[in-house]
């Protein structure tokens, strides 16, 4: 397993007259956490949508562990091993927390439709196993006591954690997190950063992270890719990016001080 987990080559997306992404290329090695940053409207979420197949590419290619996934249906791409969370939370609001995770786990179940109708013992066994597995994923993010709560009845911070638990339950090779700390105060963001670090260690999960909270990004990411107006602005280590004059001018602000926070 030597190649990168994710490889984008010349990825381009046009919406009519608007170029959302132009010639975006980068690689993400196995086990790394990479940050994708840039001003609003830079094309970061579009990049996620292109990787996961929600939007079709106008040009370029996307490869997952060497295998081309350009043009595949989104649910197939998910089955190949990419999981993502959404900028605006997209939980199954009317369902309980546990069911949200169970639906993710269903992705890897294979029992037949006929067996479902008859509810054969094998199905019953699988259902029980899936429920237990779902509980372990909830425990990984600290939500096990909320299993029976309706998803939209939970506070915002916990909903974000559920989104992450759901993504983990897909047992992906690559995790895409779209602004997981959005709407959180500094304390909550660091808490979240700790969670992401823990997940990264426990699951050895290659991660691509879109975030505006710079303390989270700088604390977690080994490599950062900066976008602006749909194009690449800079790429490099966290330290290099914080010193890059183009990045400071376009996004971070010339008065930006190096992130002081470190997380345990």
């Amino acid at each position, binding site marked *: 397993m030597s190649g990168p987990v994710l490889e984008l080559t010349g990825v381009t997306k046009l919406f009519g007259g608007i170029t959302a992404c132009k010639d975006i290329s980068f690689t993400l090695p196995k086990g790394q956490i990479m940050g994708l940053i840039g001003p609003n409207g830079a094309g970061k979420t579009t990049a996620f949508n292109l990787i996961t197949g929600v939007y079709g590419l106008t040009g370029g290619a996307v490869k997952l562990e060497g295998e081309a996934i350009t043009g595949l249906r989104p*649910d197939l791409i998910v*089955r190949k091993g990419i999981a993502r969370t959404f900028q605006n939370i997209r939980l*199954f609001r009317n369902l309980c927390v546990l069911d949200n995770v169970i*639906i993710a786990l269903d992705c890897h179940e294979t029992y037949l*439709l006929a067996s*479902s*109708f008859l509810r054969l013992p094998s199905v019953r066994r699988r*259902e029980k196993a899936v429920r237990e597995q779902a509980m372990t994923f909830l425990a990984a993010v600290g939500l096990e006591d909320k299993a029976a709560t309706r998803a939209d009845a939970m506070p915002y911070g916990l909903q974000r954690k559920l989104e992450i638990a759901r993504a983990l339950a897909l047992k992906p090779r690559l995790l895409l997190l779209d602004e997981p700390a959005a709407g959180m105060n500094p304390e909550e963001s660091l808490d979240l950063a700790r969670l992401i670090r823990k997940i990264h260690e426990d699951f050895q999960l290659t991660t691509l992270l879109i975030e505006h909270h710079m303390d989270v990004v700088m604390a977690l990411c080994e490599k950062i890719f900066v976008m602006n107006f749909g194009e690449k602005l800079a790429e490099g280590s966290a330290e290099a990016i914080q010193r890059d004059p183009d990045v400071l001018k376009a996004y971070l602000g010339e008065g930006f001080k190096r992130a002081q926070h470190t997380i345990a």
Partner: protein
Amino acid sequence: MWQYISGVISLGLIYVIATVGLAVFTGFTGLFSLGHAAFFAIGAYTAAILTYFYGYNFYLALALGAAAGGLVGFLIGYPTLKAKLRTDYFAIATLGFGEAIRVLLENLPITQGARGLPGIRAYTTLPVLVVCTGMVMMFAWNLIHSRHGRASIAIREDFVAAEMMGVNIFIGRLRSLVFSAACAGLAGGLFAHYYCFIQPSMFSSYMSTQMTAAVVAGGMGSISGPAIATLIFIGIPEALRVANIWRLVAYGLILVLIMIFRPQGLMGYKELNMDMIRGWGRRIRKAVGA
């Protein structure tokens, strides 16, 4: 007297079978089928033609009627669902198909056109209906509580997120449609051998409307809810001898009022269970006793 009551119950159970199927499609998968009576009609005509003209065994005819309904559901569903139509345009397309099936039934020689098919044998008895209803409800419940059912629910809740959970939207919806069409086909076959006469005008939008209204009123996340709502919709007008037309006026008003005041319908996302019944018992006793 019992004759009359058992007749009402029989008719009610026939519609329960069709409505439970529709509940899986509209309630759990979130798509409207405004021409669902067409599948009912296909099942009715298939089963009736088989027993009447070809002397088939009743149960085999029923099964084939259900299969015919499911097959047509597949044929209609494949192009329309593959195209990922918006919910409202899918509903309009189903209206069109309902129309098309009606035109077909009125013009094929074997269905004897608008005159209809009289003299069908009365094979449908209450015990048969009770068994069929029980089976269909059990299958529906099993389906909903399996990974296939959950996929449909995910599609209804948020189809973008469902896709991101590895759910194939097209297959999930098609599966629900075929199941609901087969249920309607089975109900149709049972109906034909209960009423003993069928003609195309019986399977009108009135029937489709009633089924959809029962699903909404019963609760779009429940199996028992729509079943109960169907029995109420059939039972009360019979009890009050209310004319068909006012029944429909009531359905329309009920739909709007439910959307405004109680969108979760009767049962919401829950099924009828002992706690609920005990709860009602407590409330009734309090109202009457205290």
